[in-house]
């Protein structure tokens, strides 16, 4: 790996209490500054790995406008940092598959219930087991839905609407999903046969790694009006689903990172890291990737919708007849690995851009037309899962996020310890016992995998949320506390 010196604190200019900037003078080739949302502690954390170096590299993408934004949950990824946002101007700016990620439209869905923790406490072990049984998880796991190529292509085009047509969704689920659960412009012809082969058996599966299903209790409410609109009441259960486009999306990204390698040279694009490889948005390669990415995004929307169906079935199995109302109601579903064509203010100008969000959540403020009527006055819900065993947050997008971060906010806690170190310092079975002592049911397929996701390997999600709230790029609604975690 490169031996170049890493970014240091003195390389930043502090713009406000929670906003720091690396100017373009920091390194030759930077087209825009890098701006990091952080307090002192989270800034120090970000300096510990190559995440800011990766943000500097990302600032060299052709066609960027404004600045590369880095969220307080940033950590080192591959090429582009996790927790990074970069906007490129249409039509000639670039799109970079690696700056969106392999797990295209990895995201989070939150469902609320009217079940109180007291009502469900005695059945929590049954509920965790039902979720583990019904939500297929693990490496390369196959689901119960066997898609023909033709049906898979429908999923690519229709996203969550396919799930609605096939009995896995309610109308309101789609209204309360980013983009209504369907990205326009998807073209299955832009997707390789290999991607389709990988996608056919995996719809309706969780996968492994940091993906999870989690039962939470609403622990604190900060905005009672917004929480009420979302159906979140203090002391009631909620459910989060974190997963993405599975092998289908991984293959789409792999195919285009490969295809773009010679394309970048053809367009005379020079970058400091080949994983940032890109092509102009108006080039044939760029257009094809956008069409393929939309297919993977739609696959992911359908996937989380089917997982929600599995979760509803699990609640019915474990709690039906034991509590008065065991229904789960959609709060929202958001992507945190995506490239979106949006219009934003850059200086005095309204500009159409492709916003690359990798490990960052869209956080549009009040009045956004894409929101359902009951959410439009509030702003877009932002779902921020914490690390395993720690809190998660429900936030709202703000006008401040539109002005400062291309309508984006954080996506989670962010890692601070390497996976290798986590495996050295944490034993999966001991971690499970510790979490269960704290009243959290754990169902997991892999103990080493559990150890890598230990809470001590992550930053403090409460501190991350405090920064985005105080910086004005999101607003607190509610805090959730886990009571059951299901992992592959």
């Amino acid at each position: 790996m490169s031996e170049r010196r890493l970014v240091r604190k003195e390389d930043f200019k502090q713009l406000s209490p929670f906003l720091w900037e690396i100017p373009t003078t920091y390194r030759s080739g930077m087209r825009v500054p890098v701006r990091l949302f952080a307090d002192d502690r989270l800034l120090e954390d970000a300096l510990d790995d190559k995440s800011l170096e990766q943000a500097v590299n990302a600032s060299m993408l052709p066609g960027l406008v404004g600045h590369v934004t880095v969220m307080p949950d940033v950590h080192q990824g591959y090429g582009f940092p996790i927790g990074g946002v970069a906007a490129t101007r249409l039509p000639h700016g670039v799109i970079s598959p690696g700056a969106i990620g392999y797990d295209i439209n990895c995201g989070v869905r939150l469902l609320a219930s009217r079940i109180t923790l007291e009502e469900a406490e005695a059945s929590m072990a049954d509920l965790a087991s039902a979720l583990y049984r019904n939500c297929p998880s693990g490496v390369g796991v196959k689901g119960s839905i066997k898609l023909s190529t033709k049906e898979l292509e429908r999923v690519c085009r229709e996203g969550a609407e396919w799930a609605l047509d096939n009995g896995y969704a309610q109308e309101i689920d789609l209204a309360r999903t980013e983009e209504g659960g369907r990205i326009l412009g998807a073209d299955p012809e832009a997707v390789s046969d290999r991607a389709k082969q990988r996608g056919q058996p995996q719809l309706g599966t969780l996968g492994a790694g940091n993906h999870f299903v989690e039962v939470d209790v609403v622990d604190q409410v900060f905005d009672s009006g917004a929480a009420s609109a979302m159906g979140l009441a203090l002391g009631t259960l909620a459910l989060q689903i974190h997963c993405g486009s599975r092998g289908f999306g991984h293959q789409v990204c792999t195919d285009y990172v490969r295809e773009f390698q010679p394309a970048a040279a053809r367009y005379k694009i020079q970058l400091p890291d080949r994983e940032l490889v890109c092509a102009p948005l108006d080039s044939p390669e760029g257009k094809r990737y956008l069409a393929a990415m939309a297919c993977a995004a739609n696959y992911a929307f359908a996937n989380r919708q089917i997982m929600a169906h599995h979760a509803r079935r699990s609640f019915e199995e474990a709690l039906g007849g034991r509590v008065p109302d065991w229904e789960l109601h959609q709060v929202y579903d958001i992507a945190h690995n995506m490239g979106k064509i949006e219009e934003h203010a850059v200086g005095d100008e309204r500009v159409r851009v492709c916003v690359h969000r990798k490990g960052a959540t869209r956080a549009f403020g009040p009045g956004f037309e894409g929101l359902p009527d009951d959410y439009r006055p509030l702003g877009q819900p932002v779902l921020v899962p914490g690390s395993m065993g720690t809190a998660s947050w429900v936030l709202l997008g703000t006008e401040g996020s539109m002005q400062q971060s291309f309508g984006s906010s954080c996506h989670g806690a962010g890692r601070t310890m390497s996976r290798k170190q986590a495996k050295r310092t944490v034993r999966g079975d001991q971690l499970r016992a510790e979490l269960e002592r704290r009243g959290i049911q754990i169902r997991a397929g892999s103990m080493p995998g559990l150890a890598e996701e230990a809470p001590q390997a992550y930053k403090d999600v409460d501190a991350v949320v405090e920064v985005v709230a105080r910086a004005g790029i999101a607003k607190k609604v509610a805090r959730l506390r886990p009571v059951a975690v299901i992992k592959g």
Partner: protein
Amino acid sequence: MPAGGFEELEHTADWALRVRGRDLAELLVNAAHGMLELAGVQTSSGAGPERTLELTSHDPESLLVDWLHELLLALELRSVAFKHIRLEVTGDRDLIATFQEVPLISIAKPIKAVTYNELDIVETPQGLTATVVFDV
């Protein structure tokens, strides 16, 4: 560097391997063994068929990415792993690999993708070395 020709490096969110080889063919074989070890691949003792795989890529780094990706696909799509890997590389862009397939029992940890992040095959006095970052 351990005798296997690969070692795991610290990486905050993903996995990284430093790999070496006396030549490109050995580097690719060692990278394959390193990746299978990282993923915790368990195989049965049964012997499967011998297979041949031919690949052509844009350059040596792409050949490394494409080769490892082919192995990941076989793990996922055909539930097979590999033993006795032999590899012939011509012109830095083409390879012919022969290996014995063995039935896969389990994988402890999934690998989503092989990335180009900081990927550069470098000549050293001992041969070649490269760092490969995997998205997990």
